[in-house]
């Protein structure tokens, strides 16, 4: 092997090493920052959740035992489940119907498409506040309209009523969340080739058949993305509920995020709150598995 070839190989290898170092330098700031401000505090919470009462260094499952025995915890889990399931379900149905409607040549389609994302753009606190006002039992405009149309006999209590409180919060949350799902689904619809529908029509497929056999399979990927992201966001939803009801009346609209917040910053039960937050994290990671797997497979 001549010296020249050797030198060339050496410099090529040095180039590759240098390239790898450059790559690490590009990702380092983000990774280090996320490690410091997210991974480390998460680890502190994890450690805190295994605290044993009366022993500063001991590790145990005391907090989790306490958590699983608390009827309030299970009530909050149920309410979170209801809140997330109905919100995401309604986002999906409304988002899908609207995306299908907007995926056709219609008058005023573009302004409508732009306008519809507005609720998703404003802070969720703002959404909570305005719906709180619309649903005000005494002066609220919705009661006024319902009474005027004779749909109800007497004003509904909405967020003050044990029966309607959670539903009222969900109503506001549906308003805020369905536009995102719509936008993602519409983009998915537009990526489905027109020819597929034409071919199906020639084969005599009706609208329902072509929806089932062309639209739905074509949307599989965007559906996973939209559902996963939406579910994760709704499980974490905090500002809307905090501003609208603060978890009340009583604890009837408490969800996991508001409850962890209260346990931590109002009752100062740091260890217990951490255990609850860990349970919530486990739930979120579980939900995100299909999404993460899809992304990893693509890479």
């Amino acid at each position: 092997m001549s010296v020249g070839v050797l030198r060339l190989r050496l410099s090529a290898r040095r180039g590759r090493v240098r390239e790898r170092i450059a790559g690490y330098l590009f990702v380092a700031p983000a990774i280090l920052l996320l490690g410091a401000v997210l991974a480390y505090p998460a680890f502190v919470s994890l450690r805190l959740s295994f605290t044993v009462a009366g022993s500063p260094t001991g590790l145990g499952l005391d907090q989790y035992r306490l958590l699983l025995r608390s009827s309030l915890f299970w009530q909050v889990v149920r309410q979170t489940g209801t809140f997330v399931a109905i919100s995401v379900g309604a986002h999906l149905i409304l988002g899908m119907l609207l995306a299908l409607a907007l995926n056709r040549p219609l008058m005023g389609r573009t302004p409508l498409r732009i306008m519809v994302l507005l609720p998703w753009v404003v802070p969720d606190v703002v959404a909570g506040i305005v719906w709180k006002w619309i649903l005000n039992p005494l002066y609220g405009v919705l009661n006024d309209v319902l009474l005027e149309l004779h749909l109800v006999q007497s004003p509904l209590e909405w967020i003050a009523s044990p029966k309607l409180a959670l539903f009222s919060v969900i109503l506001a949350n549906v308003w805020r969340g369905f536009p995102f799902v719509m936008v993602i689904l519409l983009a998915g619809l537009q990526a489905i080739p027109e020819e597929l529908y034409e071919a199906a029509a020639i084969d005599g497929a009706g609208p329902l058949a072509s929806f089932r056999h062309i639209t739905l399979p074509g949307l599989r990927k965007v559906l996973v993305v939209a559902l996963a992201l939406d579910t994760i966001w709704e499980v974490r939803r905090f500002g809307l509920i905090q501003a609208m009801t603060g978890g009340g009346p009583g604890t009837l609209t408490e969800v996991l995020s508001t409850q962890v917040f209260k346990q931590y910053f109002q009752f100062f039960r740091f260890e217990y709150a951490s255990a609850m937050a860990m349970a919530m994290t486990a739930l979120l990671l579980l939900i995100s598995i299909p999404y993460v797997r899809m992304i990893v497979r693509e890479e």
Partner: protein
Amino acid sequence: MPGLFSSRSPLAAAAIYTFLLAVGVYVIFPFLWMLLTSLKTETEALQIPVVWLPVRPTLKAYAVMWIRKNYAVYFLNSTVVSLITALLSSLLGALAGYGFSRFALRGRGVLMGFVLTTQMLPGVLVVGPYFKILSAVGLYDTRTGLIIAFLTICLPFATWMLKGFIDGIPRELDDAARVDGCSWLGIFARIVMPLVLPGLVATILFAFLLAWGDLLWVSTLTHSESMVTVTLAIARTVQEFYVNWPELMAGALIGGVPSILLYLLMQRWLVQGLTAGAIKQ
């Protein structure tokens, strides 16, 4: 184009337009009601039956909120903190996105999994310890502390979004510049960034909206009046014993308008940015 609503009968068309009208009312009415209420006097807002249009519209509620209730300060706080967060997270996210997109890093899968996982963590998991850490290093109740906290929400998204955009730019451009002796950083700054500009704008906007809309972190990491952001101010006002609704609606609009304006100005890029990752095959 057809899909489910393919029948061209007038009945179907009528059904679609009715549906669109209903959705349009559902979407727009709360904004309209916010605006109308904010222009009323308190007496007018509390009349039964409801007065739909303010008889003599007044901007008094805005004046009260902006000046006497300090919303000018809160607005400035929100703007400064969200803007710096958005720019910083997009810059760091672009660097990391470039690194992930272009380099065969060892442990790339693990690192990207890490970024993706941080995106799933709930804020309430870290907000408590984070509060203690900030207090220990003297950053509690400062804008800097808040910005660092907001980075945790924005950076994972920014990295992920921008990696997607950079993936869409042909590698050959990099290689050509590399042959011409351009450094990696030079390629990043002079070739990749200009091409990825629409995506960058979308990311900055998205990060801004996330930071601007936050309530959890500001309620835990600040306590003094001069650090309050608009969202925190609105959330506090609604919890007061006595609520003046025209004023609160004015406050809510003050908190919503920047997001709305920025979105309207840049909606094309935002929608592209949100959907690029989802429909990329």
